[in-house]
């Protein structure tokens, strides 16, 4: 239970199409994260699945049953809201028990299910408290508890951690991943935080302006982004993009000339034209101080020292902004030109329309023991 299929689903508000025709399949037990910038339609997509928002066209099927015209409560889903959406006048017990009491379950059954959920979420000693007396993390756990007791086939999370502080957020990320492992239900999670997406998801759906840009595993999106948008959105700090010009392509890859004058042969699939406007992408953590296949000279402007690593922001000789992440113990200071290098196998190449030329990376080898 927990299989979900969206077919040609759209949503329009007046004349504005906020979700363009979307096809998506979510398998049973997957932890799917919808990620994208604000206003990309990820929350609308979630609300359509929940039944809180009507779809304009297409079909949504949960466990093989089309649910377009089925009330939210009958869809077999439970949702956790960003604002927790707890009932402030009820105790933790009453909050978690509310959906069960509405469903008119026997008192003993209600009690048993609530206590089981409370134990799982470490809330057993808080059952008589009101939401106002709890911390943000505890409130969020109550909201999750209220979802768990309904035993849904699909859990929906709408930015559930965005109201928490950084430390609690990372703690809750781990707790949610554990919860997914122990329950095994399908979970759909909306966030704009790509760290949450990368750390928790088994599958990520990247959205932009109501359109699905790419669907894939976190590592697939990181190492083989389908386009420049996904490459820039996934990864922190964001990828560096350097203007380049196509020279030739061969079986070994594409040869390009960077705006800095450097000529490189990149191991990518697909052919390029001579003189074609391209962009080379290189992640800040793939830049190293000193020698490597390719070298770029950068003048650091700002050095953010994080201890274990330093994030260096600077410009190249051709005024190209560049960011590099280097070891925290490496000597670097603003204003002193530095030579950075990178392995061409780690570089990405994008056409003028933003589409990526596929990198030759074996994803299996990245996750192998």
């Amino acid at each position, binding site marked *: 239970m927990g299989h979900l299929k969206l077919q040609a689903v759209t949503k329009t508000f007046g004349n504005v199409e906020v979700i363009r025709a979307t096809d998506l399949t979510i398998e049973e037990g997957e932890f799917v994260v919808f990620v994208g910038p604000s206003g990309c339609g990820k929350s609308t997509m979630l609300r359509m699945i*929940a039944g*809180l928002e009507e779809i304009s066209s297409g079909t949504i099927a949960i466990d093989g049953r089309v649910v377009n015209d089925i009330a*939210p*409560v009958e869809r077999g*889903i*439970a*949702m956790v*809201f*960003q*604002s*927790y*959406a*707890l*009932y*402030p*006048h009820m105790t933790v017990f009453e909050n978690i028990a*509310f*959906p069960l009491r*509405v*469903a008119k379950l026997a008192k003993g059954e209600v009690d048993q299910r609530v206590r089981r959920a409370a134990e799982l979420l470490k809330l057993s000693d808080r059952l008589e408290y009101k939401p106002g007396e709890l911390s943000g993390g505890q409130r969020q756990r109550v909201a999750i508890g*209220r979802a768990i007791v*309904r035993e849904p086939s699909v859990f929906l999370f709408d930015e559930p951690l965005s109201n928490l502080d950084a430390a609690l957020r990372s703690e809750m990320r781990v707790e949610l991943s554990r919860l997914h492992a122990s329950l095994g239900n399908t979970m759909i999670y909306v966030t704009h935080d790509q760290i949450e997406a990368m750390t928790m998801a088994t599958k990520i759906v990247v959205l932009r302006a109501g359109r699905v840009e790419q669907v894939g595993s976190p590592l697939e999106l990181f190492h083989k982004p389908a386009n420049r948008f996904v490459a820039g959105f996934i990864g922190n700090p964001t990828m560096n993009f350097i203007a380049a010009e196509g020279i030739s392509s061969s079986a070994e890859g594409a040869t390009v000339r960077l705006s800095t004058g450097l000529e490189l042969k990149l191991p990518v699939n697909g052919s390029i034209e001579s003189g074609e406007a391209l962009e080379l992408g290189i992640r800040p953590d793939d830049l190293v101080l000193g020698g490597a296949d390719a070298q770029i000279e950068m003048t650091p402007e700002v050095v953010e020292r994080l201890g274990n690593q330093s994030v260096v922001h600077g410009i190249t000789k051709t005024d190209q902004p560049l960011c590099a992440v280097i070891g925290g113990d490496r000597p670097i200071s603003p204003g002193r030109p530095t030579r950075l290098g990178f392995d061409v196998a780690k570089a990405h190449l994008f056409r003028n329309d933003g589409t990526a030329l596929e990198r030759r990376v074996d994803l299996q080898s990245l996750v192998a023991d």
Partner: protein
Amino acid sequence: MAAIAPDAIKRQSFRLVMWLFTLLTIVPFALLLLTSLKSKQDLFRGAFALPAYPHFENYVSAWVDGHFGTYFWNSIIVVVPVVTCSIVLGLLTGFAFAFLSFPFKRSIFVILTIGMMVPTEAFIIPLYYEMRYLGLLNSYAAMILPQIAMSLPFATLFMAATMQQLPKDVMEAALLDGASRGLILRRVIVPLLKPAISSLGLFLFIWTWNEFLIPLILVNDDAFRTMPLGMLFFQGRYTVNTPVLTAGAVLVIAPIIVVYLIFQRKFIEGLTAGASK
């Protein structure tokens, strides 16, 4: 000599103005209370002169001889159903306007707003004939039914506006939990709206308690008269006995003050609801 900071001058002037307003509000009430505890002789010694001892017999005289006992209970009999029914109906109609879609919603909303603007004087004559036709003149129903109808537009608008301010997520969570509309209203909305309901109750209590024209026109039997109307007739009988007259006035005002003090905290919460998270 050090110059006084402009901020301090501003603060002091503000305080002075506030004190003036406070005195303007309190002094007439204090004077009324003081007069109600004086004898006729004390009164001739000046408005601010204190009596030798408090003359509570003025209140006994007003309550017994002035029939304020009857008027008081009549007012209670009218106010309680008016306030209760208006709140219950206001909750239902407010919920409809806040969350449901139905035909002519906007037009009905406008009609309700107009209903609030029409003064009682404009419809009191047709209302009189209507009540006479229904055989309700000189009854509690003659005062209760029209006042429920008069309170409903405000109760609806007030409740609809307050419900729209409730967090949408909480309503949606209840919907996802499988709660029906009635259950959402009863178990989620009403408990969250307690401060607003208290405020509405207080407004309606004051308006209904002070209503003058409807009992004056629709009731002429002394046994059905309410407090403000009783005060009018009492004034005619006791014009010369100012202390007893003021004791009657205090009896008319006192319940409003008591009710306000009871609901004060909830009322202020209601006024400031939504101002901060």
